[in-house]
């Protein structure tokens, strides 16, 4: 008999987002981008081998959050087109609507669970016909064919097929943003200015590149690197801010994950 096993894994991106916002009462804008992304990356790592669709949904929501948050980090509204701003608001409202809908059904599910629990206290009578009436019952097998029997066997015995998605072609995600922040804090001071492309040239997946990009933004936020971009979509130059060698920042490295501002 198949049992549903309850695991602590989040039931999708909305679940995780609701958890972050509601249960922890976190204001997503008060916590660092890295902790949001880390939470998502951790979930993707955990579920990545199970279901590609779920992982994709996680990425979509994570990307929306990252985009919303990045707009906050980047300087001045001057260089943001009004249309883009409106599009972003729309995305945010859509996300909000979806979260509310998801939460509504979650509340309904909890109420249904209570109804079911109350109903389970009262057991139905299913004794059925007394033997003396059995002879009266018409031919119970009328209209039944061998295929119906086979179908009945299948419904009686079919276990829940576990979803099997071959994810061999997807490289597992191994780095978190804070890992990369640590890594860059060690490697950057010795090299002066480096282009973002050269930092990420050896990375295998787009997600790794995104994580590195977020790490660079994190360092920028902490005032430990300077960023330079000559043209839109051009390469980004990352320069360690002199006088703040890696050793100094140890205390701060531990605190990746909290913004002061």
């Amino acid at each position, binding site marked *: 008999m198949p049992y549903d*096993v309850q695991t602590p894994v989040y*039931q999708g991106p909305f679940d995780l987002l609701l958890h972050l916002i509601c249960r922890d009462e976190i204001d997503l804008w008060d916590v660092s981008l890295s902790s949001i992304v880390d939470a998502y990356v951790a979930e993707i790592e955990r579920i990545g081998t199970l*279901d590609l669709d779920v992982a994709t949904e996680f990425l979509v929501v994570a990307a929306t959050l990252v985009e919303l948050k990045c707009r906050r980090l980047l300087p001045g509204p001057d260089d943001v087109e009004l249309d883009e701003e409106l599009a972003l608001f729309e995305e945010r409202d859509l996300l909000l609507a*979806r979260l509310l809908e998801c939460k509504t*059904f979650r509340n*309904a599910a909890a109420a249904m669970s209570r109804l079911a629990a109350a109903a389970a206290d009262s*057991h*139905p009578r299913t*004794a059925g016909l007394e033997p003396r009436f059995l002879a009266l019952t018409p031919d119970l097998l009328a209209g039944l064919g061998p295929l119906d029997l086979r179908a009945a066997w299948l419904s009686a015995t079919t276990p*829940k097929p576990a979803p099997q998605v071959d994810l061999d072609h997807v490289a597992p995600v191994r780095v978190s943003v804070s890992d990369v922040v640590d890594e860059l804090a060690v490697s950057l001071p010795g090299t002066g200015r480096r282009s973002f492309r050269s930092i990420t040239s050896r990375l295998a997946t787009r997600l790794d590149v995104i994580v590195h990009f977020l790490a660079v933004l994190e360092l920028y936020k902490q005032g430990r690197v300077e960023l330079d971009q000559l043209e839109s979509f051009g390469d980004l130059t990352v320069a360690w801010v002199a006088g703040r060698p890696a050793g100094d920042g140890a205390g701060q490295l531990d605190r990746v994950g909290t913004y002061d501002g």
Partner: protein
Amino acid sequence: MADEATRAVEAILMLAEEPVEPQLLAELLELSVARVEELCSRLEAAYAADDRGFVLVRVAGGYRYQSHPDLAPYVERFVLQGQTARLSTAALETLAIVAYRQPVSRAQVAAIRGVNADAVVRTLEQKGYVHQVGHDPGPGQALLYGTTRLFLEKLGLDAIDDLPPLAEFVPGPETVEALERGLGAREA
């Protein structure tokens, strides 16, 4: 002296295996449905007044005998087998969406929950809580799902309309505010 119709209702319900619809009782007893419903209400009240260990309930569109809920501790000692496993959170949430949005496709369920719903819907179908009720007329002809009679029985509901209105479950203003703040729609 109890009347014959009332006694016949008791006799029939005693050996029915599923809730018996008042329409069927009315036909068998050559009475109006309203009269049957009245008889059943009286029986319910009589059992309650006599403090019986069983109850007559209306569930999934029909009447049936059940053990009195407050005797669950005794009954559970007796019914060791056939206990159904509790549904997972995922299954319950999916069931809630199907219940309130039926007929609904798996894709629609997935859109609301943000995760693929195929495996969960299949499980619910195997357990007999949901079933296919048709096809989406639109392109793709997606299968549409609805809840079953068993679902009503498990929840102790007479009809799907007896579910509390979904509006009751819309998150309160604090939650909405928290979500809005969380997404930066409001300045903290």
